[in-house]
């Protein structure tokens, strides 16, 4: 047995052992804590396979096209379609990720507001977080080095919101103008709905925002519960979480409405229209056309199946007839018990047979999986 074979068998065994233990051992054993990283490894291998596949496609069809071998026209269509869809899908992904960037920032602030309240309730005081919340941490001044009491964190939230809102408002104006100028009926309807939601949500946000003080409460030289000096403790300040939670809820609504506005705007772009023609116009329609063929094929297959040439086909036809009659009003007119007969046929003999097939196939599949894991291979694969 060569080193290569041993290595392959070893890797197969270790991989199989990992998944087997992950399946069998309880979650509390801690065995699964690295599962995400290991799964990332599989994604990596998949990405390599994808790259290899692309290289292969280019080599096979590129050479056929270059030397005008048999089937070069089909290869041209394939390569053209591949590059077109790759380009359009990449640009579409880039554009949509831009749309969601500000929405995500709003949602981060929402989570932050919820985090402030839950941490305050549990008495948790985190050490560092200004940089995650506000892009302009320098503007926080003294706050940047203050201990993260709930009041200080609320100020971070307020600063971050003040940073973000003008950008959101500006982009919203641009999106509205774009849809009004280039949008069709569907986009305008979407815009109207999203704009209405946005205006309502923004009003709620503004009223929630004014409930939060713009500066830390000062009690006898104490800022937000921190004395401006060393070694002195402040009197405890009672933190009220409800205004912060209200702000968080409003942020969620604004994020949703803002996303709707951006999507309406993106729909008017040339890129989205090209993508829509390629995907909805060609890809989905061609798939639907193929699927519709099934209707005709089912008729042809049913005709062949229901020609009574043997006892089995007679039984099959009778069962099919009872099921069909049990499903239509005409069957009910013939007999009240036909729907029950239909149900019995489907739920008892049919389900029983299907389960028997599935159990047999599953056991056989499991045995095959064990054989692969333990590298007990047949001569066919050596």
């Amino acid at each position: 047995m060569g080193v290569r074979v041993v290595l392959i068998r070893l890797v197969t065994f270790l991989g199989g052992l990992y998944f087997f233990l992950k399946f069998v051992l309880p979650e509390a054993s801690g065995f699964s804590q690295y599962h995400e990283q290991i799964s990332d490894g599989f994604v990596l291998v998949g990405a390599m396979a994808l790259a290899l596949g692309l290289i292969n496609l280019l080599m096979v069809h590129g050479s056929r096209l270059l030397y005008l071998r048999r089937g070069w026209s089909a290869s041209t269509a394939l390569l053209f379609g591949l590059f077109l869809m790759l380009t359009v899908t990449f640009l579409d992904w880039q554009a949509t990720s831009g749309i969601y960037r500000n929405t995500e920032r709003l949602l981060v602030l929402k989570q932050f507001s919820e985090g402030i309240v839950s941490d305050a309730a549990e008495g948790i005081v985190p050490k560092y977080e200004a940089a995650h919340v506000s892009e302009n941490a320098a503007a926080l001044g003294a706050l940047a080095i203050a201990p993260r009491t709930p009041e200080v964190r609320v100020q971070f939230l307020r600063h971050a919101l003040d940073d973000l809102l003008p950008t959101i408002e500006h982009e919203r104006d641009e999106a509205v103008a774009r849809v009004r100028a280039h949008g069709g009926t569907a986009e305008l309807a979407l815009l109207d709905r999203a704009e209405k939601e946005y205006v309502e949500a923004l009003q709620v946000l503004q009223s929630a925002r004014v409930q939060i003080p713009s500066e830390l409460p000062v009690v006898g030289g104490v800022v937000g519960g921190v004395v401006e000096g060393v070694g002195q403790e402040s009197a405890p300040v009672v933190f009220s979480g409800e205004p912060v939670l209200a702000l968080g809820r409003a942020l969620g609504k604004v994020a949703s409405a803002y996303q709707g506005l951006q999507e309406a705007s993106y729909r008017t772009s040339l890129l989205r229209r090209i993508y829509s023609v390629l995907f909805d116009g060609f890809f989905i329609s061609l798939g639907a056309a193929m699927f519709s063929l099934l209707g005709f094929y089912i008729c042809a297959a049913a005709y062949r199946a229901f020609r009574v040439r043997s006892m089995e086909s007679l039984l099959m036809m009778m069962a099919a007839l009872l099921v069909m009659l049990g499903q239509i009003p005409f069957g009910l007119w013939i007999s009240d018990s036909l729907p029950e007969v239909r149900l019995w046929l489907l739920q008892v003999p049919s389900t029983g047979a299907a389960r028997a097939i599935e159990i047999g196939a599953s056991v056989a599949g499991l045995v095959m999986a064990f054989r692969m894991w333990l590298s007990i291979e047949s001569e066919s694969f050596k």
Partner: protein
Amino acid sequence: MGVDHATLGILLLMVALIGPVIWYIRYARTGAPLYVRRIAGIDAIDEATGRAAEIGRPMSFSTGLLSITPALYACLGVLFHVARKAARYGSRLLIPQNDPQVVAVVEDTLRDAYRVEGKAAFFDSKNVVFLSEEQFAFAAGYMGLIQRENVGAAFLFGAFAAESLMLAEAGQQVGAMQVAASLSPEQVPYFICTCDYTLIGEELYGAAAYLTKEPVQLGSLYGQDRAKLVFFCLIILGVVIATYNSFAAIYGWSSIINVVEVLRLEAW
């Protein structure tokens, strides 16, 4: 807190499943004769390959939407046999594919089959055709291929969904002899209506053992049959206990713990 499958019962069940398989594989390797009953659909594989060679038309073998799973290896056993026959008779064997990863594995199996027959020079990798990963695009490609090449025998072994009838109808239209095998009970009726022979469920796993008579495959088949017997006994026991418990609830008898609950008992 554990999860349902992380129990001692399930672990023991797995041992009961794999134990007979390993034992029978070792037993088969000693050269002991193991009988496998005849299945008409499997016999038809040889008949179809011979018929396609006689009328001078190519053959096709598709694994449908199957990705790299244990079922693929069962299909590869049959493919290996069909490919050997194709190499021996000088027939062209087309293998339309849906999964790029399977393409590589199938190509390797095909190459091995030609090499075993001493016809390595006749192996042509272009016969393994990657069509599409998209279900209906694959079906369209397959139908086109079957019609253009006018295949004489078509083998549909693997995983199929809504496209099963399209694939089988394409072969039917060109008058190909068709043998199908599906693990999915929902697709079996379509194949029965359209194909000449259909293997149902686990017969797919038994096909390679029956065709090749290799000890590993035969032993595995025997072992899994015994494992199924264990499952069968557990099902019967479960039904008896459940029936008793329903009477026990009516007449006030004490109930018995059922099989599923025993398997779920946590022992860690």
